[in-house]
């Protein structure tokens, strides 16, 4: 029976290029992220972490295999952006904020895309930025923010969308240890609030906060274990 509270990849494979230049990124990967858990996806660079995040986030299509959200197959959805906007939020290592918009506008954008009136979207975005300690920085452009602040804005954008699943690709990769700790704590809080959070990282320290650890190497899962309690 399908689990109605998880984001799941089933036998997902993906390769890039053709012939001799073909690179296999994923080889029949199975992974699930349940609501309320923080999963750490560990692996060295080139192990397929980002590809898996992109496929789970419906940004890329797998060559084979299927994606399920709460038991519903979404891998061949005709409007993946609708699912992304409502059910899955993605946080990137490079923050990926729109440079022409203020922090507040960047955070409000997912709500505007969903058709929520600007007044309400702005109020929710402001409240979320406040929660992440950026109340004073909401009118700043990304170029005026530090790396840690930019990543918090990106997390605020993921939070405000009320997505059930948050996929974070190396969210602390560009941050100093203090900010990395702060961001990791926020993501842990989000999982405790009932969201399913997947963090792709090659930082083993971040894995100590996870409820479950999945280790990826050369496109295959080589290890998976539960942690008894997240810190």
């Amino acid at each position, binding site marked *: 029976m399908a689990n109605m509270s998880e984001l799941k990849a089933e036998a997902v494979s993906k390769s890039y290029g053709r012939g001799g230049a073909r690179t296999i990124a994923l080889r029949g990967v199975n992974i699930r992220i349940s609501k309320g858990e923080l999963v750490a996806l560990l692996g060295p660079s080139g192990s397929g972490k980002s590809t898996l995040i992109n496929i789970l*986030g419906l*940004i890329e299509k797998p060559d084979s295999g299927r994606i399920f959200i709460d038991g519903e197959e979404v891998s061949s959805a005709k*409007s993946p*952006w*609708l699912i*992304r*906007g*409502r059910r899955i*939020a*993605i946080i*990137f290592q490079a923050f*990926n*904020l*729109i*440079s*022409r*918009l203020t922090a507040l506008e960047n955070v409000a*954008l*997912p709500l*505007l*895309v*969903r*058709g929520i009136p*600007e007044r309400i979207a702005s109020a929710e975005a402001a409240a979320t930025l406040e929660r992440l300690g950026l109340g004073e920085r909401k009118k700043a452009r990304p170029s005026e923010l530090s790396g840690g602040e930019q990543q918090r804005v990106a997390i605020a*954008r993921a939070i405000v*969308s009320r997505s059930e699943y948050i996929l974070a690709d190396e969210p602390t990769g560009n941050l100093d240890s203090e900010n990395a700790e702060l961001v990791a704590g926020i993501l842990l809080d989000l999982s405790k609030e009932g969201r399913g959070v997947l963090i792709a990282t090659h930082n083993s320290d971040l894995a100590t906060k996870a409820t479950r650890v999945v280790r990826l190497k050369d496109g295959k899962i080589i290890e998976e274990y539960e942690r008894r309690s997240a810190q």
Partner: protein
Amino acid sequence: MKGGRLNSMWRTKLALRNLSTAKLRSILTILGVIIGVAFIVTTMVVGSSSVTWLNSQAFGKGSNLILLSTGEVSSNGGYSISPTPVFGNDTVAAIKSVSGVNSVYPAGEVFPFTVVTNDTKSIVSLPLDFADPALLNATGVDFIAGSSHAGGLILSNSTAHLLNVTVGSSVTLLLPGEIATETWKVTGIFVPPSSSLGALFVRSAYLPLSAWKGDYDEIFVKTNGITSVASVQANVLDAARRTTTVSTIGLSVEAFSLQTLFSGALTADRTLLNFFLFAGVLALIIGGIGVTNVMLMSLKERIREIGILKAIGTSDSSVFTVYMIESAFVGLIGGAIGLGIGLLVSIGVLKPCWPCLSPLQSSVWS
């Protein structure tokens, strides 16, 4: 399932922010559109106006007339009309029998002529024709005083002004050759057409044909329609040459019409218009490729931003529209300014030829 779509205000907001962020690129792109549109507008307006003007000259009122006269071909291929009395009634009859001929108006011409008014003698260095008043009606001149059929002296307005006479004035004409001195009453004053029609077919003064004695210097032929002028002209000329003997060495019977006179100019102008059209289309294509290239480069630069918009759930059509709005702004602003500049340049180019501007005015503002 709804969603995924940014509202119009936000799409416009993002498009305008994109434009304002890359100011120099935006300005250069708009400048490219301005130059392209202005060039196309100028070439099209100037070209089409000149063709329309030439058409109005060649195919306007009175352009179904053919003039038969004697003339001299110069060594450089030019032609001068030297009316001599060579056309008899047999020629008039032969021309009347030509297919497509509507009316034939033989005419005698004197040049120059002397006018005595109130003891003031004026030598008028302009031709005086003896012709059927219906000929004047066929040319479409406007009578501003009197009429064409009153049987007296008919003058163009400039000749009447020169002689300081009006309808009802009596003048004495001293005509060269065998035509005697006669006193005539002015019965009509007309305004000749401003087009080439006036120069070719309309004279400065007219007397009734009944006052003319001997063979005719000219024959005016009115055809049934405009389209057949060229073929009728050839047949009329053939008939005239068959029935006429020109004794003066160097002179021959020739036929003229506005359409044949303008045919070369019309062909040249149409060729020029086609060239400008080609140049305009080429400019449009090159400009279009240039603008597309700039927009594609702009898109490539913002591929990350597009990815972000899609990652947060924006639909492909919303993302596409943002960049279309940006392109539309560039196109509309550049197009509007280019159109204005193009029209101003066209007016500047056509200004020395004010008659050419009337088709421009009618084609642009009506």
